[in-house]
């Protein structure tokens, strides 16, 4: 009956029914055809809300939102301009460096694409960047955020696979930097070919000197997050709560740009994002129930291990499946849907689960800027006021970089397991 579920899900999805509702529709039809009790839907919807580690999601969203709503965003862009503005295509480079730094504050690529896109794309267009290229840089580089800790997709993978979230966070740094450096090189190359302008910070270091100390507390956030986790001072959920306290402190006492209205807006935004993310997580949990009862993971694991003789072929097959699924499904939903299946397969071929987690997130984050459904792609195209097709053309070099990194993560364990 899993097939009936997939068909109904796909049809509803094509009709533009929201993803979570479409999942529930598919599961409902499958349960009826199977003669299984529909009551399971409500029960499984509830399950993810009972997980304590899941609390880290709203608090990391809130911390990032509080930080970005104030002056921190401006400082961030200024630091990036100071560092890389002198390169050709400087504003493109700023976008990438910005994403790496922003990644340490936020666990979400969409927050990154929205915040940095709105700040940088309009300026890039004014300086003569092709619309498609400006949107392409933003949609691809913002995915670095989900690799540099904290990371919501990595938390989700940790939850479904029982792998330590701390290990996943630590292992995410290197792939995140690799992606950043690769994209940096691509922007440099394109900028030289198209002769894009430099964008140094006006007044240079002298002008910035006064700001540097005020920017430091915000930039210390990633150090704080990784430090507390890495040295086992606190658990991920506790760190997410302390990150909110830290963000409140920094914007309240250092930047002094915090007010009740801002806090309320950040909380409402966080609640809405948590609701939308969790609803998909909850709906996936009903799908997982159905797949478990029908023993799909075991069947799949047996099928995969018996039809492919070599582990490298299985890893390749998993990557292809993820690229396809990621093109259609949003990143958190895809992690939750494929995570349990691939953990079974990964264990069968002795693949380290931390490596598998990074492989999944690197792979599925490519889906954020591939059509037909790509959230950072949509956001960036909307900000640049251009068509998806234009952006995709300019994205080719970024796909190339991301696939190289994916290949390395998939086949070189040393990059993720220390």
């Amino acid at each position, binding site marked *: 009956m899993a097939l009936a579920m997939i068909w109904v899900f796909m049809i509803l999805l094509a009709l533009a029914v929201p993803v979570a509702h479409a999942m529930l529709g598919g599961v409902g039809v499958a349960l009826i055809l199977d003669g299984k009790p529909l009551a*399971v839907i409500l*029960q499984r919807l509830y*399950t993810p809300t009972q997980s304590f*580690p899941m609390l880290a999601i709203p608090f990391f969203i809130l911390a990032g939102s509080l930080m970005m709503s104030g002056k921190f965003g401006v400082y961030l862009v200024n630091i990036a301009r100071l560092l890389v503005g002198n390169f050709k295509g400087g504003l493109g480079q700023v976008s990438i460096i910005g994403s790496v730094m922003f990644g340490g504050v936020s666990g979400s690529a969409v927050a990154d694409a929205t915040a940095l896109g709105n700040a940088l794309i309009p300026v890039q267009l004014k300086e003569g960047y092709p619309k498609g290229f400006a949107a392409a840089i933003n949609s691809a580089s913002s995915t670095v955020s989900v690799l540099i800790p904290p990371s919501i997709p990595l938390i989700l993978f940790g939850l479904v696979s029982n792998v*330590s979230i701390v290990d996943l966070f630590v292992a995410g740094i290197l792939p995140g930097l690799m992606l950043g450096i690769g994209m940096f090189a691509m922007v440099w190359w394109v900028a030289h070919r198209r002769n894009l302008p430099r964008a140094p910070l006006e007044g240079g270091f002298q002008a910035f000197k006064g700001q540097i100390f005020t920017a430091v507390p915000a930039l210390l956030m990633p150090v704080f997050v990784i430090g507390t986790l890495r040295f*086992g001072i606190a*658990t991920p959920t506790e760190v997410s709560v302390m990150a909110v306290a830290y963000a409140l402190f920094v914007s309240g006492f250092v930047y002094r740009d915090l007010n009740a209205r801002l806090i309320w807006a950040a909380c409402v935004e966080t609640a809405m994002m948590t609701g939308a993310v969790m609803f998909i997580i909850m709906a996936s949990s009903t799908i997982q*129930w159905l797949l478990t009862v029908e023993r799909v993971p075991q069947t799949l694991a047996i099928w995969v291990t018996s039809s492919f003789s070599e582990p490298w072929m299985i890893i390749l097959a998993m990557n292809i499946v993820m690229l396809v699924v990621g093109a259609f499904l949003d990143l958190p939903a895809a992690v939750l849907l494929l995570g349990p299946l691939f953990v079974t397969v990964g264990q069968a071929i002795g693949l380290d689960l931390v490596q598998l987690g990074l492989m999944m997130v690197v792979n599925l984050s490519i889906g954020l800027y591939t059509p037909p459904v790509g959230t950072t792609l949509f956001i960036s195209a909307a900000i640049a006021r251009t068509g998806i097709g234009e952006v995709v053309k300019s994205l080719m070099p970024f796909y190339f970089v991301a696939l190289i990194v994916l290949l390395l993560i998939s086949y070189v364990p040393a990059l993720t397991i220390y």
Partner: protein
Amino acid sequence: EEVIFAHGANAGNPRFVAAEKWAELFSACTDGKDTVNVAPSATMGNDVEMLTSATGGVIQVTANSQGAMSQIVPEIGLLGLPFLFKDLPTAWKVLDGDVGAMLDKRAQDSGLKILGFWDNGIRNVTHVSKFVSEPADIKGMKIRTPPDQMTVDIFEALGAAPAPLAWSELPTALQSGVFDGQENPLTNIYSAKLHEITPYVTMTGHKYESTPVVAGLSWWQGLDEKTQGCAIEATKEAGKLQRQMSLEGDETLRPKMEAEGAKFAEADKKAYQEATASVYEKYAKQYPDLVEALKKAAAE
């Protein structure tokens, strides 16, 4: 008809093996009329969720936990009174007798049918730097407990500082030094590698825990008498196997853990028993008859 039997244990755990055995026995007893779909590793949710599922008819049977069950039938929590049973066979005798029947009756008021009791072992204390052989050693110890009132009461009576924490957060919390130690049956300690962080294992055996095997009452009542008999019989037979493995488990785990660096010591149980007597008084106020009956049955 398909019967879903769900539990939270992973491969290698006695509960996992017993569940497979249950499936085999039940299916054979009903001449293959009913097939059993065993869902291990909490794939159907955690213990609390599995109980909701069974009551709501989403699954049929679950090998569950004493803690989750006591959220529905608080009396089941009394099985964990400190140092109640002198050994496992005594506990089994009590559970298979009148006390078990009484608990089953209480469960049926809440939409659940207890098919029988398997084991979950006896709990011991692990510490990061020392043994706690005497009650005095445990004074002031920051100890992680599950969110279970009985366990918290026991360690408060001993003068320790118990704090409940989610199981999933335990290894990080122990590493961070927030806690001096924790308490669990050896199987759990071994499978989560907790002895690598807290190598000092004191065999306190302070608390017994059962694994109630529970069916949804509406499903149960819809069965014919023969099938009901099959379910009870399968639980009993698989339970024998499970209890045997559980008994041997502690004996085989100890050398394994020692080889991995854990150190073991015995506890002065008599002194501990006296130090925790106040816990009995507290619960005797709430459940005077049952506490008395349990003490008597355990002493026989």
